[in-house]
């Protein structure tokens, strides 16, 4: 084996790539793990311990920051002085928006597993059956039972705090102790359950509320709620704190940062991908690496880019793109719609500690006997807090009175925002624009995707239902809101290389293998056949672990 040859190559080190690296190396495979970004070791979190007064500009992005991260700024939070270093310089990494498209990227070892929201929900049988039942797109080639043991496997390793609820639309998992709802949230729960027959639960979040024996490098949650900066305690799951250290421990991982994979090398005679072509992000040097099996975990659009950019006589329209579906069926969760209200009472109650989590109302629309004029549904995430000084902007108090008001905890305010399923539409797609190049002289991705009538109809319910539940709970000044978003803002982008049963209509098979080239697996969000409304990361992890197990078996059988 020459120095550029390995048993396996993993492209990307985010949520999915970290899992592929851990599972492959633990099975004894010599694995090259590539990431296009800089090295970030667990603990390399420069802002993690800064106090509010140690962040410049009160934490806000400067005009220069905004010039470099205009898309990240659309989120309203990721570009702060506390976290801007985890998001790409968009001037160096341009893309084309045929419609507004919010592509929020984190190029570093660990990817966006450092900054993710940590909400971890299983999908249910209903979600895997949805396309078949509705007769849209293509059927998932797997069902809940195929993934359930892998959810168990993943949850046991990453640590998910949550409560068992026995809900068919949101299966229980292997949980660490749940976090607590506060008094206002508990009162709201009572209304939601009793008047509407809907569940309201504490969020299921990948935080250690108890130690994990197998990961002594990780501590329990300290309730700082500064997770997006990176956790020096390793208390929430990230690749950096969890899967990459596990892979490193095996001695089987070679991790190369600053390695931009831009193409798969296709061996037409053997009908397999023999390796990858890599650009060094710092020097521009080109290298080829070879392996028996390749896992693309470069993020939904990162993997789509590599596949689209890998053209050959056999695959003139992109690697494995016999179906013409590569780059199509972009999905996300549509959000920034819901309602908020003020809560009278509980003036003598407060909380201490900063809970990095909220409540969750699992999907209830088009569940059981409920029938709407749109397909699928949404879940809500929300929380109740006592307001503080930013809420005094429009208060007439000034001077000593303003100060006094700020010192006394303000009224309780509760808000909930929906996460809605976006259907897989063939024409919501991304293509390569070869007329434009980035600084590495690689072509740009060009996005053309938008919300359609099903999503817009759903958004009406998402705002109205939220307001209705808050009103029924007796809260005051209930205000629904529905803001214009671009697809991508949910940062739950999915699709582009969907799984399916038929190579004519899908890119990947039931094991995440490219139909037309079985030694290439794609296990990040690109593989998703539908989007459900639950946060997807846990499902990517379970799919990845399942796919690695399959690859290892196939290698043993000499099938790859």
């Amino acid at each position: 084996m020459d120095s550029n040859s390995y048993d396996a190559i993993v492209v990307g080190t985010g949520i999915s790539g970290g899992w592929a690296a851990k599972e492959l190396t633990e099975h004894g495979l010599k694995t090259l793990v590539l990431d296009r970004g800089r090295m970030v070791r667990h603990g390399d979190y420069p802002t993690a311990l800064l106090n509010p007064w140690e962040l410049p500009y009160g934490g806000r992005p400067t005009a220069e920051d905004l010039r470099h991260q205009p898309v990240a700024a659309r989120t309203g939070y990721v570009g702060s002085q506390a976290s801007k270093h985890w998001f790409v310089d968009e001037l160096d990494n341009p893309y084309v928006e045929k419609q507004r498209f919010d592509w929020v990227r984190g190029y570093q070892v660990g990817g966006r597993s450092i900054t993710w929201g940590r909400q971890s929900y299983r999908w249910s049988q209903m979600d895997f059956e949805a396309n078949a039942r509705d007769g849209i797109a293509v059927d998932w080639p797997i069902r809940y039972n195929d993934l359930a043991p892998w959810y168990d496997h993943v949850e046991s390793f990453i640590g998910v705090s949550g409560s068992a609820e026995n809900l068919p639309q949101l299966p229980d998992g292997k949980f660490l102790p749940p976090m607590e709802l506060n008094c206002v949230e508990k009162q709201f729960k009572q209304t939601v359950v009793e008047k509407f027959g809907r569940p309201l639960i504490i969020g299921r979040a990948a935080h250690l509320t108890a130690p994990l024996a197998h990961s002594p490098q990780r501590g329990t949650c300290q309730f700082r709620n500064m997770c997006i900066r990176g956790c020096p305690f390793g208390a929430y799951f990230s690749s950096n704190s969890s899967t990459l250290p596990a892979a490193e421990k095996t001695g089987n991982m070679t991790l190369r940062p600053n390695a931009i994979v831009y193409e798969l090398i296709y061996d037409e005679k053997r009908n397999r991908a023999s390796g990858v072509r890599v650009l060094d992000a710092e020097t521009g040097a080109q290298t080829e690496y070879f392996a028996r099996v390749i896992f693309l975990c470069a993020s939904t659009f990162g993997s789509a880019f590599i596949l689209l950019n890998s053209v050959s006589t056999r695959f003139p329209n992109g690697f494995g793109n016999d179906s013409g579906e590569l780059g199509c069926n972009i999905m996300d969760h549509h959000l920034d719609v819901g309602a908020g209200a003020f809560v009278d009472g509980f003036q003598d109650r407060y909380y201490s500690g900063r809970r990095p989590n909220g409540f969750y109302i699992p999907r209830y629309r088009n569940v059981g006997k409920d029938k709407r004029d749109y397909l699928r549904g949404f879940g809500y995430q929300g929380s109740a807090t006592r307001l503080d000084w930013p809420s005094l902007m429009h208060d007439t108090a000034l001077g000593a009175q303003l100060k006094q008001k700020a010192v006394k905890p303000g009224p309780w305010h509760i808000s909930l925002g929906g996460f809605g399923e976006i259907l897989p539409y063939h024409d919501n797609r991304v293509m390569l624009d070869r007329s434009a190049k980035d600084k590495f002289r690689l072509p740009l991705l060009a996005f053309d995707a938008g919300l359609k009538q099903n999503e817009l109809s759903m958004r009406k319910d998402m705002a109205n239902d939220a307001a209705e539940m808050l009103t029924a709970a007796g809260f005051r000044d209930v205000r629904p809101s529905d803001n214009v978003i671009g697809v991508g803002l949910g940062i739950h982008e999915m699709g582009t290389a969907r799984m399916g049963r038929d190579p004519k209509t899908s890119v990947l098979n039931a094991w995440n293998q490219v139909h037309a080239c079985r030694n290439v697996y794609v296990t990040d969000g690109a593989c998703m056949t539908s989007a459900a409304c639950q946060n997807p990361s846990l499902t990517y992890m379970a799919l990845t672990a399942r796919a690695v197990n399959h690859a290892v078996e196939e290698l043993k059988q000499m099938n790859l």
Partner: protein
Amino acid sequence: MTVNRREALKRVACLMGGTLCASAILGIEKGYSATTSVGSKAAILRPPQMAIVSAVAEIMIPRTDTPGAIDVGVPGFIDLMLKDVYTQKDRERYLAGVAELDAAAQSEQGKKFVALESPQQIALVRKFHDAAVVEESRLHRPHAHLQRPFILMTKELTLLGFFTSQVGATQVLQYVAVPGSYHACVPLEQAGNGKTWAVQPGIEF
């Protein structure tokens, strides 16, 4: 309180003068990080404008039994924010607003704003403030599209600069860097010292 305000205004007045005064007002002595890069000289606000901005910030958050806006370096913070965070259009609107306040002092009281007695200054600030609050509350616009007038930009930046300062966060509000545990619902007096937490859950996620 009145004494404190007079003391504060004296400190504003010294902005017209030497660098020693200026460094005190810009908060350099307090080690307020946001202002340390400003140095002793403001980047955007000329001394007469700085005097007005300082007076307005101190009227909004005065020194009481705890430090006020000037004590923690809010005027220097505002100057830095104007320089690095805001756009040229915002800066022009802000400076026009400063001039407008001064012109109102001149036309209503026949004096420059900084020459007014404290109650007159407060009354004028309140008048501008209350009108702007009514107008902005009516709009329901997202923050980025507000084009906030001078008086509310000053309020926003005074609140931000003050409550994210070490003094504001730890002496006026309460702050615990590493809480270690979460108690969802406790009697107010058992939640630390019962004051508002300087960092709320939900600001970052």
